[in-house]
């Protein structure tokens, strides 16, 4: 619109947005980086350190005596502590009380008589005049500068989970109709509440607002009872896809109606009038005028409804069941976690696996949040 925009204000805008974006993504970035890290590292160093070469105190257990080789009359156990990774050893030791007692290149006399030599590149050698024994290998403490190290293991583990594909489809089967149906139903209701005249309209609007607050947990037991009753009466299973769609619809409707009504009420009256004069019935007006013009509102609500149904676990567990054939993606991923929780590496990776579909939905629907949808329709204001 406005022709020239090369003012300092524009820079201010860019900078503020960058700042906000950084603030908002920082936690997520932490999650992403964490999901690419080794699970043991997660608990001992901040994720931001993962990006740079860091000095770490590590412990390495040398192979046991059974790997010793005899060389020039000496028994030697040798290898590399860094196990193929790059890094730079700056100190080492063999006693937990003094883990950095020696410099690389030095050799240390172990209490048991062997000589331990560690090079800066991580190569070590335990040499002894006599054959070594004991199954337990020697612990070597070392301090090393370790460059950033990332792994896709966490993702591999998540993606390899059994039945993940089926769960993915289950999730979609739940989420897509559970997004479209409530939107359709809510849009009709919102139109009625915004543009049709009938007694009790204001009360209904208030009821819708009031119902926004009903805690989901309150409804589960009465509803499941009802489902079981209906299921038994009709001789069908109580937990079906239809059941969960309807449940998601019920829970999502108040917000959907509330948001959509608000939006529809703001559309220019003249357009509706014009359609009415053109002979359109309420139904035609709704389908041909209101729906297309409400696209921004429909799109934004679909984003949220999809997201909720996609990320929902509770409703799915209660109304769809937990069997292998019904388990949704979130359920499947949660089952990957141990009984006591805490597998953060799985948590972080699965958080990113599940985030992708909602983000795609967001990205596609964001296009419908268009500007100037109503431009050119009426003059006045």
């Amino acid at each position, binding site marked *: 619109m406005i022709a020239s925009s090369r003012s300092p204000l524009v820079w201010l805008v860019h900078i503020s947005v960058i700042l906000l974006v950084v603030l908002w993504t920082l936690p997520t970035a932490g999650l992403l980086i964490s999901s690419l890290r080794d699970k043991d590292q997660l608990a*001992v160093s901040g994720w931001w350190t993962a990006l740079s070469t860091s000095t770490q105190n590590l412990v390495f257990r040398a192979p046991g005596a059974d790997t010793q080789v005899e060389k020039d009359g000496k028994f030697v156990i040798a290898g590399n502590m860094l196990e193929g990774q790059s890094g730079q050893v700056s100190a080492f030791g063999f006693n937990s009380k003094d883990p950095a007692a020696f410099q690389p290149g030095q050799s240390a006399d172990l209490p048991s008589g062997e000589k331990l030599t560690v090079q800066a590149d991580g190569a070590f050698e335990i040499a002894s005049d006599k054959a070594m024994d004991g199954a337990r290998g020697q612990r070597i403490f070392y301090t090393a500068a370790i460059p950033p190290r990332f792994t896709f293991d966490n993702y591999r583990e998540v993606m390899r989970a059994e039945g993940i594909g089926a769960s993915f489809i289950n999730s979609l089967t739940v989420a897509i109709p559970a997004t479209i149906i409530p939107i359709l139903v809510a849009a009709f209701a919102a139109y009625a509440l915004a543009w049709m005249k009938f007694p009790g309209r204001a009360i209904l609007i208030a009821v819708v607002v009031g119902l926004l607050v009903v805690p989901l947990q309150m409804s589960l037991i009465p*509803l499941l009872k009802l489902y079981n009753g209906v299921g038994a009466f009709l001789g069908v299973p109580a937990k079906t896809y239809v059941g969960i769609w309807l449940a998601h619809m019920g829970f999502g409707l108040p917000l959907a109606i509330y948001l959509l009504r608000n939006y529809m009420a703001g559309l220019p009256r003249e357009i509706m009038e014009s359609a009415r004069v053109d002979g359109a019935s309420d139904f035609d007006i709704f389908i041909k005028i209101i729906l297309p013009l409400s696209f921004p509102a429909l799109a934004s609500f679909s984003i949220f409804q999809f997201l909720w149904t996609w990320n929902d*676990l509770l409703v799915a567990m209660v109304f769809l069941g937990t069997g292998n054939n019904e388990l949704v993606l979130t359920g499947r991923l949660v089952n990957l976690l141990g009984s006591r929780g805490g597998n953060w590496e799985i948590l972080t990776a699965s958080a990113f696996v599940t985030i992708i579909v909602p983000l795609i939905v967001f990205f596609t629907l964001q296009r419908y949040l268009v500007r100037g949808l109503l431009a050119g329709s009426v003059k006045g204001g």
Partner: protein
Amino acid sequence: AELKFKPGEDSKFNWASFEEFKKGHDLKGQTLTIFGPWRGEDQVLVESVLDYFRDATGADVKYSSSENYEQQIVIDTQAGSPPDVAVLPQPGLIADLASKGYLTPLGEETKKWLLDNYAAGQSWVDLSTYAGKDGKKELYAFPYKIDVKSLVWYVPENFEDSGYEVPKTMEELKALTEKIVADGGTPWCIGLGSGGATGWPATDWVEDMMLRTQPADVYDKWVTNAIPFNDPAVVGAIDEFGWFAKNDKNVDGGAAAVASADFRDSPKGLFASPPKCYLHHQASFIPSFFPEGTVVGQDADFFYMPPYASKPELGNPVLGAGTLAMITKDTPASRAFIEFLETPIAHEVWMAQTSFLTPFKGVNKDTYANGPMKKQGEILLNATTFRFDGSDLMPGKIGAGAFWTGMVDYVGGKSATDVADGIQKAWDSIK
């Protein structure tokens, strides 16, 4: 599915029991739904056991679990669509379900079986007996898969490096704690953090201390509130825990870190270089949270949380926890499943893998996958007193609420008396 161990192949398993069970049960075409707390690795393991049930009976077994299994089971039973068999780790919750009439009594035969076959059988039967809807006490649950909680974990080589010895008595343990402090080290890693359940590791401490300072019947009265929570006996036990945890020098990070440190992270301090601590009190499951590649028995080991030498009359009490199976829908299949749990093979298959302890005397101890597990199994079998985790026995609002919160407040600075008073008040409010 492929059975984990081919029947008849490895002679350490009791294949005969399997074959016998197989003969007695044919459930083809029937479905058994089991709802349990095991997820992740545990779920793989339990499935491997269930495979044998499938194989033996031909039933279609559906196991499922949930992060919110507590909530889920309440909803499902209340709404009238329970699984056939539920497995829960909380006797308190089971008592509640029993009292609302959602559970089926297992009957005298099972009770007798438990008495005969489980070590310290009576305490298991007591643990599994609840009042039903009609107020009648009956056996409603079948304990299966036990954790030993009275364990202290350490790194043997760190002990060697510093010349420490494994303590045999509580007095020695305290002395060791002081010695480590004197040597400039930090003796303990304690973490109570557990998201929504923050505080529970401290309850294990207190329970262990209860068993080591008071006779078992006081413990029993305590968990049923026959003696108030703020009884001096309880306050004393809390302060015993406080001796370890409320001293900045004794714990890694100082007392302030105890409450917020995650219990899953805190054992990692044992393996740091240099070590952040030397001792860690936690149940038998904790090795899954050790750094990857840690070999129990080599890199880490445990010893029995010792009793006071000054109180020999209390013997070697063992605190434990475990899961209990119960019938939530009375079907032939669910009955059969309980019977299946009575076969040695149902225990041995899991024992031979990992993280499974059983008080079942009829199993071959050699099927334990490794030394440490066997050692834990022995602690369990040698226990003069076995008591189930008290907080799990208390009503949910206390054992999984006020008690946790109280412990957090306690390490946060409140006095033991204040905390105990508060918990008792909460208990009064739900009576």
